């Protein structure tokens, strides 16, 4: 753990996770200038346990277990401001996606199980229907988190404004969606 001030010995080489990120995503964290422009612009830094610059630093240090149990993985809004501001063009949201997927597969200590559930349900909806049916998805989600009326009042408002429909049709050409998921699961098999 890195919270303590016990003296550590950093690796002089590229850490295994930094190498995986470079090979799998083509993103080299060695480009980081450590300027903190990502964190300064971050929409939700106040709600993070580790801010974007520190996450990159964890990657450099090879703190793999720490990275997979980050709270920030699940509270990140994926607003893309960090990559937009980064003077080195490091795609931090892509790294966050990658770490989220790794955490999910590794069944690691995920601090926001609900958010993980939400991602699961949303992706299975897209896989089966080609698009999201918000109402059905919200019901599934509420069932999954065992709180049937979560966000119900908010849903009602959206419904009255015509923003939410009971049924959304499947996408016309569902056949184009499935190969995407097939390709992704093949990639997963390799990783």
């Amino acid at each position, binding site marked *: 753990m890195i919270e303590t001030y016990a003296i550590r010995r950093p690796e002089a080489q590229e850490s295994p996770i930094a190498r995986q990120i470079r090979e799998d995503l083509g993103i080299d964290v060695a480009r980081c200038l450590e300027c903190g422009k990502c964190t300064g612009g971050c929409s939700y830094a*106040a709600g993070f346990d580790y801010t974007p610059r520190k996450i990159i630093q964890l990657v450099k240090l090879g703190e793999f277990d720490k990275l997979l149990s980050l709270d920030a993985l699940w509270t990140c809004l994926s607003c893309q401001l960090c990559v937009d501001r980064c003077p080195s063009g490091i795609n931090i949201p892509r790294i966050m996606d990658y770490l989220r997927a790794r955490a999910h597969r590794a069944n690691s200590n995920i601090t926001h199980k609900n958010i993980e559930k939400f991602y699961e349900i949303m992706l299975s909806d897209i896989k089966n229907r080609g698009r999201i049916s918000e109402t059905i998805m919200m019901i599934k989600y509420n069932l999954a988190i065992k709180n049937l009326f979560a966000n119900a009042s908010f849903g009602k408002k959206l419904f009255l404004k015509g923003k939410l429909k009971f049924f959304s049709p499947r996408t016309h050409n569902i056949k184009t969606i499935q190969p995407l998921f097939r390709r992704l699961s093949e990639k997963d098999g390799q990783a």
Partner: protein
Amino acid sequence: MSKADTAALIIGGGIAGLETALKLGQGGYTVILAEKESALGGNVAKLHSSFPRWEDPQELIKVKQAELKTLPSVRVLANTEITGLQRQSGGFTAHWTDRATQKSGSLPVQALIFATGFELFNASVYGEYGYGIYKNVVNSLEFEHLLGMYEQRAIHVPESIAFFKCVGSRDRSKGFPYCSKICCMYTAKQAGLVKKISPDTQCYVFYMDYRASGKEYEEFVRQVIEERKVRYVRGRPSKVVLENDKLLVRFEDTLIGVPMEASVDLIVLASAVVPRPETLALARMLGLKTDDYGFVEPVYGSPVRIEERIFMAGGCGFAIESLGAIAQGAAAAAEVTALFNKSE
């Protein structure tokens, strides 16, 4: 051949070109100094105070200009743009246009000195900083003008000023990968001068690292931090928003790792040093090699020789301090002297 038969054309009358003209003129060589603007002095003539000894650059320009006037072999062509350059045996033909009278002509010269200087990167590329949108976000050269007015008490010094370094420098996504070299020092000078004029003004300098590798440079920056009480913050600002006539700067203090905000009245952007497009155009006329950015390049082993008969001095080669530009100006004069003596 006598000295009167060989002439050197210096393109640009900033501090580097002035120095070359002075040294060649003192040696009795025929010099034509072409300056596009109406006055000599270039960027240095716009500056207030200097590092590392708080000396007056405008005074320096005045002294050099007065000295130049005493030299009979130096011809200064103000308002004059060099519009064409052609090679011919033993030298060049230079075409010029007088920007005031629209007159034009050409002259034969035996040596060329590029002293065309640099300009600042257009910081409006960074939407997040609001340059060109908020009137109180200025670049560092525009701020020099304000400094002059603060010195003369012509306008009030604001209550708080933020200086952003590396705006366009060290940025591979929207600017340039290189370090512009001079910004660390002139920013320290600007902030230090503000504190001298108005000790109550709060000055923040946002930096990634401060680079002070020169004689007395480190001591200068420490003096600005320790004695003049300029607040140095390690972090690159990420956002500027307008809030009740003030500018709210968002950044991370990367030493403690916490996102922070500062409310200021004025923001000064230390924009990257970039080559002038005119330099590139002139270099192309002669088929000269430039670097990837458009700065002219001397050969390995000489600080100023680009090729036979063609030299450079000052900011057209890369970002450079005024004293460095003077050194290059003098070196170019030495190279021309050696060349002319060889041909004689």
